[in-house]
């Protein structure tokens, strides 16, 4: 785990340890983090988006770096910025196993744990806040108007990078219902169906951002 704020790093480390994770290393800058990852080969790395030296997008670049060196290590980027641009850049740069989560989510440790589990499993994670900003965008001719409420809920979960199974568990509906919702959504939005979670989330995000 890397964050230049010791206070936040320590707090999150304790919280995750309490939640049953093994926090095996803490770093204050991207170089140290990569050295730790190289030596300890953890299941996942948690990276602050802004770190020394320039405090711009070191976290995003560190995520790419780690994924390039260790394609099976999941990387969760924590950010205080609710910006679609960063999330899209991250997701588009990697075929799965990366996630963009607002730091605010630490108010519920389960959300953080869930996100870590998903990147470890090679799935993409997009913060719900980012997704709701995309869905809320004002459009002159809004294709989302054609969707039912239920379909919009499903679309939001798809955009967050959830699998059909996760959607089914989240909304307490049957696998067949999920599948039919997904199919309807893809038809209404004119998107191609793909069994790949990552490609699906990218297609949905790109569509919503257009």
């Amino acid at each position, binding site marked *: 785990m890397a964050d230049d*704020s010791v*206070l*936040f790093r320590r*707090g*999150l480390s*304790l*919280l995750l340890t*309490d*939640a049953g994770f093994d926090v095996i290393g803490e770093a204050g800058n991207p170089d140290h983090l990569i050295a730790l990852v190289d030596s300890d080969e953890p299941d996942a790395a948690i990276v602050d988006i*802004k770190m020394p030296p320039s*405090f*711009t*997008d070191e976290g995003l670049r560190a995520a790419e770096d780690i994924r390039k060196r260790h394609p099976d290590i999941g990387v969760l980027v924590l950010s*205080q*910025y*609710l*910006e*679609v*641009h960063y999330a899209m850049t991250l997701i588009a740069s990697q075929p799965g196993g990366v996630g963009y989560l607002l*730091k*605010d989510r*630490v*108010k*519920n*440790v389960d959300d953080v744990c869930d996100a870590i589990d998903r990147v470890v499993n090679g799935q993409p994670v997009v913060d719900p806040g980012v997704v709701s*900003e*995309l869905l809320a*965008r*004002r*459009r*002159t001719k809004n294709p989302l108007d054609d969707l039912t409420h239920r379909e919009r809920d499903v679309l939001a979960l798809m955009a967050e990078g959830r699998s059909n199974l996760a959607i089914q568990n989240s909304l307490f509906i049957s696998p067949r219902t999920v599948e039919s919702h997904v199919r309807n959504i893809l038809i209404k939005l004119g998107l191609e169906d793909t069994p790949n979670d990552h490609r699906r989330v990218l297609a949905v995000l790109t569509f919503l*951002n257009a």
Partner: protein
Amino acid sequence: MADIGDRAFLPTTRSWLRGANGILRTWVLTGLGLLALVLALIEIIVGTPQAQPTGLVVVVNAMVGMTFVGSSIVAFKRRPNSLVGVLLATTGLLWFLQALLLVGTSWALSLGLVLDGLFWAPLSHLLLSFPTGRLDSRASRVIVAALYVTLPVGNVLSALFLDPTTAGCPECPPNLFMVVDNPSLFRVTVLLDALAGAVLAIAVLLSLVHRWRKASEPMRRILRPVWWALWPAFCVAAILVASDFIAFPSGYGTVVLPLLNVALAVLPIAFLVGLLRTQLDRSMVSDLLVELEKGPLQPGRLREAIAEAAGDPALELAFWLPESQIFVDDEQRVVADPSTSPSADRSVTSVQDSDGNPLALLIHDPALLADPLRVEAVASAARLTLENERLHAQLRAHLEEVRASRARIVEAADEARRGIERDLHDGAQQRLLALSLALERARVLNSTAKNPHLEGLLKDMSDDLEETLAELRELARGIHPALLTDEGMGPAVESLARRAQIPTRVVSMPSARFPPPIEAAGFFLISEALANATRHSAATEIVVKAEADEAWLIVEVSDNGVGGADIGAGTGLRGLEDRIVSLRGVLRLTSPSQGGTTVSARIPTSLESQSWE
């Protein structure tokens, strides 16, 4: 007018005929004119009966004196400071006094013998000193002095031995100066006199040729009429001198003398033309003013125009650089201050501003000083232009300073906002996030203790904190979006458009990065235009475009709303205009009352051309 100018320009020269003595001068000149008229009339009355072959000869003879005196009056009036008038008048009067020979009394005859041909002395003096009246070489001073001495002395010497009654004029009165009637001695003195006259005439001639050859073009312009009018007179005079040595056919005098008279009568007019020619050329100065009025000239063209108006193509213009305290020419080469190394063939006229500070130097031919008023006029025109240009340059410099200082203020404000945004993220937000972590930990710990009261409290605190964090994030983004600093205009504007209340399409955005002040100007223009459209336009769609080439960033925000927006109405657009103008950009608002508003800006993409500190 000419008098006033001359007076103003040359206050220290001879002045018996000017200034407060204006009335006296009028009287003197009128007297001079009347005197010449009377002398001419006497000459004609006395001379006509004796004239051979016709009285016309006398009239022509009197006319010579009249033209000299008349020209002298004009010269006095136009050039009161020049000796030219005095010399012309003296020549004319001496000419008239030769007619004393015709009067028929012995004292008049005697005086006439002494004064005969004396006019050549002031005439030669004039020829060698024209147009200033100053003899500027030693040789010419020697020649003129010799003339003034030799001519009267020669006349007196020959008069000592001349008895006109025995020398072919039986009806003539006696010569009072005669000591002894000795025709052979008389013959010797006449020959000596003629010899001296011939030598001096040749000296005058050589001196004139020398003057002409070394004269500059502006000087030649003044000398030319005299130069051409001189030769006939000289030729005829040479024949007369020769007649003292060689026997010409009898009666040649009736042909040659009138010719000499006509040739001499033309001379003073030639002097006048030369003298006044420069004055006629003053119209060139008004041409110069007309040209200067059209607008700023290239430094080179300014020199040309001034040289043209001054009538000296070789005129140089040296501009004063107050910062480095040197003079430079129109190609920025340093010009040595000519006043420290005076040169005989170049004169220097200094051009000063109204406070007496140097502006420039005109380095020109000394001949131009023959018409000081014209030089003064040219210098004034140069002063007007240079002072005007200097004021313009100062104004431009001040405006540039103001612009640069505005740019610095805007940039400093941007920097401060970036600082606040960073502080909010790194300070307050980090602490609140740490607090959020602690609360979550407390909630997790409590989940085993199961205190429902505490659980509710922790949940409320956590929710409040989440809202606070969201508000803080919005606040920081509003102050200065980190996305703009880190990722540039494109992502920042996309983010803005996504969150806009009115559907907003971003049609184009440059992918290149620009200096922070330029990106900030583009971003805040779009941000302000979106906010204005949201508040006032009732539009259903906004289109944002931004394109950049090497020189310009062009940003445009248009809506399909009600229109009628005014740049002065809200402080937002006014402030934006300041920001954009401070970058040498242009902001334009098109908002017809029939609908639709377009805010656009052109901003230079480079700060390099600016005096950026």
